[in-house]
């Protein structure tokens, strides 16, 4: 029987996920919530806003210039035979690169081959403006300011799915990030339990499965409206509200002893995990974390950046632990608009630079390796004599993930003005 939107809204209003004529995606959501439905490949994109110092995050300790360029903030090289009482040092990965000690919880992931690092990744555009560079990375059109949509949105549009739900793309953020902005719809859910209608002045006691009376009125107003823009947006909105009400009804318990750190990133990733496990049809998740713009007092082994890295490492490790087997289908990617200067500045910090390091974490990743065509830090090897030079275009990293992990076929539409060529993929996705 043909299911009109009006019919579906009415039946959804009466019984949440009731039996009977329910559109396919609703059926799948209900099914997935109860049993575990189709397992989608998932990408979690995390934007480190402010330009993280990749050279202190993943230290090229074999480069002697690293130490002379950073007299106060360099991370001590890995100790082969640590003396008693010696402070923390970089954590050796492969004899050339090492992790900042605050990322200790990521070392086991690297050893278990779940974590890969791509280094000296950057943009062909040389801007040192945060705004412009973030824009270029989120739209994946470096140098072009007129692109309105994000590359992840173009991915969604290029690969429509018959059974997609309103949760196909979710940004755990206060506003829609540019990376997800565009024609294809995506959801902004800063906190699962707050994505709801607040209702009348004297609300009746909150009963999780029953929508408030105004919710029905709102839904009816919008469903029966002659305004196509709003009736379409509203249809998805109300499905999202009901689904999240159901998800939020149970207190979430991270699995396998995972402990998320208390900061925002930990909370954001926990919500992403919750949505993945709830089987609501999540395919692309986005979060961002700030505080990386360390012009002043960046700190070395300890300090501002170290604190931020601890939160990052602990949150990623907790997410990995929490998802357990489900990580088989999940890839987490970190990115930042550019790196920082190779030399420290006069304020024990670093300034805007060029190439950077990205983490790629997940079951499909060929981890335990740092993928890089390392350009070096010696004089003559730096970009503009200031920064780490770029040897991998960030679009190649994005492309490898959308093609090899998410299975996109129309990559030309996703990366306008760029020729995707699998031969340039670094090979971090199996």
């Amino acid at each position, binding site marked *: 029987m043909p299911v009109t939107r009006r019919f579906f809204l009415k039946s959804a209003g009466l019984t949440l996920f009731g039996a009977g004529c329910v559109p396919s995606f609703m059926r799948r959501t209900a099914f997935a919530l109860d049993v575990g439905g189709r397992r989608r490949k998932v990408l979690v994109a995390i934007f480190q806003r402010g330009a993280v110092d990749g050279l202190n995050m993943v230290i090229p300790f074999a480069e002697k210039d690293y130490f002379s360029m950073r007299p106060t903030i360099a991370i001590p090289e890995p100790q082969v035979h640590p003396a008693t009482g010696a402070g923390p040092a970089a954590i050796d990965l492969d004899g050339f690169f090492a992790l900042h000690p605050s990322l200790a919880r990521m070392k086991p992931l690297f050893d278990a081959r779940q974590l890969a690092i791509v280094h000296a990744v950057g943009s062909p555009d040389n801007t040192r403006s945060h705004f412009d560079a973030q824009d270029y990375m989120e739209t994946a059109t470096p140098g072009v300011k007129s692109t309105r949509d994000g590359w992840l949105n173009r991915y969604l549009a290029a690969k429509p799915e018959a059974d997609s739900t309103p949760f196909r793309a979710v940004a755990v953020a206060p506003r829609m990030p540019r990376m997800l902005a565009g024609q294809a719809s*995506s959801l902004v*859910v800063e906190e699962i339990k707050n994505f*709801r*209608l607040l209702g009348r002045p004297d609300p009746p006691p909150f009963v999780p499965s029953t929508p408030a009376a105004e919710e029905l009125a709102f839904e009816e107003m919008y469903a029966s409206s*002659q305004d196509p823009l*709003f009736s379409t947006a509203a249809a998805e909105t109300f499905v999202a509200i009901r689904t999240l009400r159901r998800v939020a009804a149970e207190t979430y318990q991270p699995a396998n002893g995972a402990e998320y750190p208390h900061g925002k990133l930990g909370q954001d990733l926990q919500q992403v995990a919750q949505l993945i496990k709830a089987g609501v049809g999540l395919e692309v998740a986005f979060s961002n974390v700030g505080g990386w713009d360390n012009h002043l007092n960046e700190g070395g082994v300890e300090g501002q950046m170290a604190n931020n890295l601890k939160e990052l490492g602990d949150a990623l490790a907790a997410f990995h632990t929490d998802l357990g087997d489900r990580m088989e289908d999940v890839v987490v990617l970190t990115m930042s608009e550019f790196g920082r200067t190779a030399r420290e500045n006069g304020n024990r910090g670093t300034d805007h630079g060029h190439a950077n390091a990205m983490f790629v974490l997940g079951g499909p990743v060929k981890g335990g390796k740092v993928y890089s065509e390392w350009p070096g830090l010696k004089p003559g090897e730096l970009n503009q004599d200031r920064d780490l030079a770029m040897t991998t275009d960030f679009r190649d990293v994005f492309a490898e993930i959308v093609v090899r992990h998410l299975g996109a076929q129309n990559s030309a539409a996703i990366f306008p003005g760029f020729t995707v060529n699998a031969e340039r993929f670094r090979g971090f996705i199996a």
Partner: protein
Amino acid sequence: MARCLTGWTIRRPRYEAEFFFNPRMHDYHPKLVLGRKFPPGRGMEDGQEVLHLLAHHPSTASFISTALCRRFVADDPPQSVVERATSTFQSTGGDIREVVAAILTSREFNSPAVYQAKVKSPLEYVASSLRAVGADTDAGLPIIMALDRMGHPMFQYEALSGYADRAGTWINSSTLVCRLNFAMLLAGGRLPGTAVRLQNLPALNANPSGRGLVDAVAEQLLGSPASPSTVEAIVSKGGLGPEFEVAAYRPRGTRPEAATVAGLLLASPEFQRR
């Protein structure tokens, strides 16, 4: 272009906003801008000439006129009104008042086809809601946060182009939830720093019957009748008690009902547009 403007600065930047041309900071070498050669040795005239060039450039007339048409008529305004505005701009030497007048008196602006074609930006939505209920507000944090959540953190757009004046910029599931919640919170007097006295609405004293009341309140708040589908939705699904339908309307006793009706009306699809 940047070289022409070298030297244009502020005399005491941290103290007061006094413009001053500093010849020591100016680049006196020859320049080429928009095909025009600027001879060497000129100071402030370089900047003045480049501004003159830009102001008279046909693209400027067209860009500004298009933006104004997008502001008043529709996201994609008909080419005819854009052309009319552009030629007015050019013939009046950039008199914005004349350009706006040309747009507002145009056939295209006054056409029923573009009635309420524009979706209100969050700022327009919040401001029109506050005015509709006669709110007394300090425009404090709850209002700022509401704007932020609706996707319009004031003055914080990252790029120089500013917020795009289009429906797609403002409307998605999450911002829609914010608008609906804002309407209910506002009407219910639950926004700290913003006082609403709905019982003073004259409509509330007039008509006791449910449907008629919704119509009267709509006329009062929205400035025009609500659509039949909106009225029907409120009356049938608004969860309003039987006393709302039947009894004589007493503002004090029935305040929660008034707040609900007002909130639903402010949240209606038609009130999202202008």
